[in-house]
């Protein structure tokens, strides 16, 4: 056991992200006055190669046995600094991460003095905890070299094939009766005008031919337990007619064919459940006949049922509004593609696109916008405050450029509605314990640094389940998610966190409340040779939430890395008089 801790404090400037609002020099100077701190260094970027090297050198040269990094957020960068400790032969749990960027400099940008004072307080809290940190042991857990891919559309199939081609077993679960997803309903793809059904049928055939992929259609995932490397999954095959009941949550008519649960284990899970198109019920006289959605137009174009002399398309229907502020990204390009298709196929048919902003980013998409202009597609800009009006025979729209209301006679109105999260996404998210955003789309761990990962290790996301995206982007994501997943599957073992619960046998009286409250079956009551019962924790099964430690009446159960003493030290440090008021005698 280490007697007097030697704490090294590293204060990151993060360029000007932290050093702009926060006076990092005074934070570093203050840090050196804190008990236990023997070394302080500022880094322009602590996470850079140079910064990490300086930390490792300081651990060796200064004989540091605790490291405090005051920088961004542990949610993205703690593993990096833990690795640096490991490489310097310091147990990675002797690192404490202090968040002075995301929760300080970025949120108090206009109050530099308050931000600096808060950064000093946070550093004081971090150092107080660091002094009480203990080395923790990690467990090696074998990896099940198999993947579960949820969603059998183009993205799920692409990810599944990619993993199967790397030699991993894949279970591909699709709730519909056939593979293919949204692609089956489309008419053409942009910018290549490929036949989506042909593209997707080829992929379906590849999937079905592959020995390494087990396809389970009409099947839903009903429960997920376990952890990275060892997820225990229950899937249920639905009898005919059950799919809809499940989607609407209507279980009032139990089917005769009760679902047959099946169990499987998977090292990783990829979520590729896609999205669906918003049904514009009650908007612009939507009736599915004369007023249809862009997706319904695709179906008509595919089956050659287009009977119209003049078509008006309305963009941003139910999107970029107060209720649904996001841009669905694919609708402008889709509308233009379909307008061009109508133009090519049916001479004499005029197409009007009523838009708010034409979002066709990228050289290829901007080109088809130019093509449509040249081909004589009419673009009329409207304002959200004065939306178009659809009557029996015409569409009225106030043209911003002309400053006048146009009256366009037409036989068909096509509404471009956004992609929305599919039914069941929230339920699946709760099952997987991963977050969704306010619209029900799956939320990645970090939009830039970990765009295909969830914060939960071993679960990944790709495609429109995450956000409306073009097919080419989602295919890239499918490959990306498969690559991320294979970083786990290619290992024989994963390391489970050292942050687990631990029992002090002297204090435990064997009441079993920890056993009752644990959702993961980690603590058990066992009889010692003395005949006394006492709690034991299976470190591999323990997820480290610390609820058992909270409920333990004697204090025998401790949550490692978040012990009572460590939390109390942080509380005490948080409420000590702040340095600024000490130094200047000036009350805050």
């Amino acid at each position, binding site marked *: 056991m280490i007697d007097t801790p030697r704490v090294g404090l590293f204060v990151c400037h993060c360029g000007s992200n932290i050093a702009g609002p926060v006076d990092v020099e005074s934070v570093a100077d203050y840090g050196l006055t804190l008990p236990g701190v023997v070394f302080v260094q500022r880094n322009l970027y602590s996470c850079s190669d140079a910064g990490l090297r300086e930390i490792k050198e300081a651990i060796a040269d200064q004989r540091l046995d605790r490291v405090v990094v005051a920088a961004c957020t542990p949610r993205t960068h703690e593993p990096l600094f833990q690795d640096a400790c490991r490489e310097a032969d310091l147990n990675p749990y002797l690192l404490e991460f202090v968040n002075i960027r995301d929760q300080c400099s970025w949120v108090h940008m206009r109050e530099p003095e308050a931000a600096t004072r808060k950064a000093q307080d946070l550093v004081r809290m971090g150092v107080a905890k660091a002094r009480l940190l203990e080395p923790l042991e990690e467990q090696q857990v074998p990896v099940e070299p198999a993947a579960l891919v949820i969603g059998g559309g183009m993205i799920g199939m692409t990810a599944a094939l990619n993993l199967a081609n790397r030699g991993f077993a894949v279970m591909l679960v699709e709730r519909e009766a056939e593979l293919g997803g949204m692609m089956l309903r489309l008419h053409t793809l942009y910018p290549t005008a490929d036949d989506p059904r042909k593209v997707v049928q080829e992929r379906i055939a590849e999937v079905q031919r592959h020995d390494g992929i087990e396809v389970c259609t009409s099947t839903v995932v009903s429960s997920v337990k376990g952890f990275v490397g060892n997820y225990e999954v229950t899937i249920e095959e639905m009898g005919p007619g059950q799919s809809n009941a499940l989607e609407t949550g209507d279980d009032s008519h139990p089917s005769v064919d009760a679902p047959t649960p099946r169990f499987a284990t998977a090292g990783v899970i990829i979520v590729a459940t896609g999205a669906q198109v918003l049904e514009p019920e009650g908007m612009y006289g939507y009736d599915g006949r004369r007023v249809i959605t862009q997706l319904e137009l695709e179906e008509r174009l595919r089956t050659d049922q287009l009977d119209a002399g003049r078509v008006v398309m309305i963009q941003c229907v139910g999107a970029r509004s107060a209720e649904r502020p996001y841009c669905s990204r694919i609708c402008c390009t889709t509308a233009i593609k379909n307008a061009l298709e109508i133009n090519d196929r049916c001479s004499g048919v005029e197409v009007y696109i009523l838009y708010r902003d034409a979002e066709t980013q990228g050289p290829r998409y901007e080109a088809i916008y130019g093509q449509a202009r040249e081909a004589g597609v009419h673009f009329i800009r409207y304002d959200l405050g004065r939306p178009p009006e659809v009557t029996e025979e015409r569409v009225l729209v106030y043209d911003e450029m002309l400053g006048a209301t146009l009256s366009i006679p037409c036989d068909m109105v096509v509404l471009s509605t956004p992609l929305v999260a599919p039914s069941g996404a929230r339920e699946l998210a709760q099952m997987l314990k991963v977050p969704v955003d306010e619209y029900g789309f799956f939320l990645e761990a970090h939009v830039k640094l970990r765009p295909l990962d969830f914060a939960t290790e071993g679960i990944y996301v790709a495609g429109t389940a995450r956000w409306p995206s073009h097919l080419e982007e989602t295919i890239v994501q499918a490959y990306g998610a498969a690559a991320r997943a294979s970083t786990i599957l290619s290992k024989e073992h994963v390391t489970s966190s050292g942050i687990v619960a631990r029992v002090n046998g002297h204090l435990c009286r064997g009441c079993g409340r920890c056993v009752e409250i644990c959702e993961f079956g980690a603590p058990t009551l066992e009889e010692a040779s003395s005949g006394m019962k006492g709690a034991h924790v299976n470190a591999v099964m323990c997820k480290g*939430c610390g609820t058992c430690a909270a409920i333990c009446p004697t204090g025998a159960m401790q949550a490692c890395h978040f012990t009572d003493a460590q939390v109390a030290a942080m509380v005490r440090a948080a409420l000590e008089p702040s340095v600024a008021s000490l130094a200047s005698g000036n009350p805050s």
Partner: protein
Amino acid sequence: MVEFQPQIVVFACNWCSYAGADLAGSSRMQYAPTTRVIRVMCSGRVTVGFILDTFRRGADGVLVTGCHPGDCHYISGNENAVVTVRKTVRLLQLLGLEVERLRLEWISAAEGARFARLMTEFTGQVRDLGPSLLGNGAEREA
């Protein structure tokens, strides 16, 4: 007279609320600099003892934050937080502390705006109550 700046301790769970706090930052949402976050893995880790100790050390307000019901990374840890906060509220009443100094809120990883709003709103609420009976605020207000 200098406006009373309350000292507020926020317990935030690693998976939802702490992530929400980070999102407030990456979205550059500005809020009151009165709060100090203590990260725990789950809101279920927070004990009656943690909260009482925080008040005893002089906090003017304590905010316990966790995942929305049903979203807990550990399935039901946030349900334990509900029980803990309820018990503590009764003890605060016995101690003569205003129960409005303690709040439990659910903040998801996507709710950066909600985190920022709650920090400012709770600061206002505690500021209106004035310094805690047990707090360091009397000196700070002078």
